[in-house]
């Protein structure tokens, strides 16, 4: 029994706490942020925890500056993160685009609250899904993860760092106010080792280093500033050398690689939890805190003998198109509950290409979608 | 006895020069003059190798070699 206690630690923590702990487990060494509800606890915890591991915490003068500082820290080799919520996420968008353009690994947490504008600061929503994908201007790659519980927040925070290092891309972690603030029992296995990825470094001497080299993998090796490889980083469209270019051929080549680098690895990045039943004709697509209600609704429906195919993506961008297409082939309808007016339903409709009916279940009043509301939508189709 | 003066070597890089004439206007001894779009050396004898033309050239297009090394060599002879 005692031995077991040595191995396992049981904690009751919130999603925001799990996010901070996950980041530290992933090797976070730099956090820059700005106070905003409902994400502030992440900054508060890290202001306490980072110095103990030799890491740095800074509360910047604004959200924009926090995003800039994170990029600066990442360029000198620190694993870096910021955390915010809707309005702050809007302010970060320009520099988020810079990170995508200059291929600087970093993690941006957005604990979603009701919008637009100041909106519903203390209440949950899932209405920043499109902002996460298209908030910054221009065609750009992005990865967005979305956990449905506290333990998963911990795991996905680590994954966010890994993906960002592996693909040299900013990764957005979309929590919502419910996940950020809900207390859950989490069991940590002290012996559990997480695989931690580091950005691939060049195997050539400085004089041969091309910071934006076209490689077989489409992800150029990256070296930190100060290691003897002096190079230029810019938000302007650049060629392999990192310097700005106006050459049409180079522009196309670069921007295609930039976007291809995520598209071609979509299967590696996308994770979907599938809970299917043979012959089910009702599909259900849910994510984040809404997936908790959806799970409950699925159980209630199954008690009534209704078969459901339930899929729950933890990666929203890139969008799990193949999984949805399969679901559309199998089912007569796909129910999409979400705390917005139908942002993901729109994507589900696109991915199902008219093969099935997409049914929206939405709430925008800062209240969670209840299991009964999803169950009602299911039973209407029986 | 007056020593032979080794004159400074003024180089103008026309690839980088934009013809702003700052070097010409601020030369204290009128060593330089504009010739069309570019400056040229017109009075090398007057050059004291103060290098103010270099200091104020925004385009890294003019350099003045004092030829000090040569001067000492000359003196040794």
């Amino acid at each position, binding site marked *: 029994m005692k031995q077991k206690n040595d191995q396992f630690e049981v904690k009751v923590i919130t999603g925001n706490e799990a996010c901070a702990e996950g980041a530290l487990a992933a090797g976070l060494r*730099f956090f820059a942020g700005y106070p905003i509800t409902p994400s502030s606890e992440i900054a508060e915890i890290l202001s306490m925890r980072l110095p103990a591991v030799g890491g740095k915490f800074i509360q910047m003068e604004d959200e924009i500056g926090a995003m800039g500082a994170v990029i600066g820290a990442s360029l000198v080799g620190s694993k870096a993160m910021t955390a915010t919520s809707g309005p702050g996420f809007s302010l970060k968008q320009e520099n988020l685009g810079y990170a995508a353009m200059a291929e600087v690994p970093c993690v941006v947490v957005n604990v979603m609250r009701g919008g637009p504008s100041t909106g519903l600061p203390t209440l949950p929503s899932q209405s920043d899904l499109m902002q996460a994908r298209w908030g910054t201007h221009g065609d750009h790659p992005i990865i967005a993860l979305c956990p449905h519980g506290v333990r998963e927040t911990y795991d996905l925070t680590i994954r966010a760092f890994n993906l960002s290092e592996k693909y040299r891309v900013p990764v957005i972690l979309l929590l919502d106010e419910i996940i950020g603030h809900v207390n859950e029992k989490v069991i940590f296995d002290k012996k559990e080792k997480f695989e931690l990825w580091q950005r691939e470094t060049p195997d050539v001497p400085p004089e041969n280093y091309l910071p934006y080299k076209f490689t077989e993998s489409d992800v150029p090796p990256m070296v930190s500033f100060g290691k003897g490889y002096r190079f230029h980083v810019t938000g302007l469209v650049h060629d392999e050398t990192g310097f700005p270019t106006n050459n049409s051929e180079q522009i196309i080549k670069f921007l295609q690689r930039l976007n291809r680098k995520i598209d071609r690895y979509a299967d590696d990045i996308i994770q979907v939890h599938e809970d299917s039943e043979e012959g089910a004709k009702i599909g259900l697509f849910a994510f984040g805190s809404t997936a908790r209600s959806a799970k409950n609704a699925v159980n209630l429906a199954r008690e009534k003998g209704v078969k459901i195919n339930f899929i729950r993506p933890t990666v929203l961008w890139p969008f799990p198109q193949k999984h949805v297409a399969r679901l559309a082939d199998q089912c007569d309808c796909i129910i999409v509950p979400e705390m917005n007016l139908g942002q993901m339903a729109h994507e589900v409709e696109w991915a199902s290409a008219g093969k099935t009916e997409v049914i929206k279940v939405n709430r925008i009043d800062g209240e969670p979608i209840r299991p009964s509301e999803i169950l009602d939508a299911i039973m209407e189709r029986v | 006895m007056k020593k032979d003066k080794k004159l400074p070597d003024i180089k103008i890089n026309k690839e980088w020069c934009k013809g702003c*004439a700052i070097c010409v206007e601020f030369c204290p001894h009128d060593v330089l003059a504009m010739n069309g779009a570019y400056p040229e050396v017109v009075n090398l004898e007057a050059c004291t190798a103060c290098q103010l033309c270099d200091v104020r050239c925004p385009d890294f297009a003019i350099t003045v070699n004092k030829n000090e090394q040569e001067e000492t060599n000359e003196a040794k002879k």
Partner: protein
Amino acid sequence: MLDYNKYLRQQKFPLIWCAGCGDGIVLKSMLRAIDKIGLSKDEICMVSGIGCSSRLTGYVDFNTLHTTHGRAIAFATGVKMAKPEMHVIVVTGDGDATAIGGNHYIHAARRNIDISVILFNNNIYGMTGGQVSPTTPIGSRASTAPFGNPENSFNISGLAEAAGASFVARGTVHDALILDKYIEKAIRKKGFSVVEVMTPCPTAYGRRNRIGDGVAMIKDLKEHSVSVRKASKMSEEELNDKVVTGILVDRERPEYTDNYNKLIERVKGSNS
């Protein structure tokens, strides 16, 4: 004179700046100061924002970071905090640093983080075509102030002083060799330092305000600059159209990355 070539990315020349623009004069002064201190190229991170002067980072062989508009100091803050042994030099302009980036400018000064800012003040937005900036003098013309600027302008060195910078100096491209000393002192200073350099923009400012080309503008700068010492004996009215040059602030204040490292030691000490 210094052989600048060892610090230049010569393949990127000629410079993007217009004929008569003073930015290259400042760049040379920076390189002479860096060379005098004897910093290695690997230990310098040069960070710039957006604008004419911010294009400078593309031409120098350091670790160079060309960021978004106004955010150079924010990016630089991340670099300096995460790697305090790096010499972080920010290259920025009057619009970049004190309009869109004004918040970062004052807060970096307040923290007194060890970053040296070389602020190219040409009183105008040059790259975008001559729009009015926070330092365009009242009454001057700009493409967005066709009837003369109705706004008061910033004293951006004074702003840095009031916000808490350790070192502030103002110079002009006319007195470029004196500028070397200011920049050298700024880089050596442990703390937030600003060197405001008055530099001409003949294309977007000089022509529109009938001062003339680069040569005329540099002469104009010479005529209008007075040293701090001289200025102390002049009336406010006499100083109205003058540029006060010299070391304006040189003081000791606790530096931020030092403070933070001490905090780390304290936290680690109490944990063990």
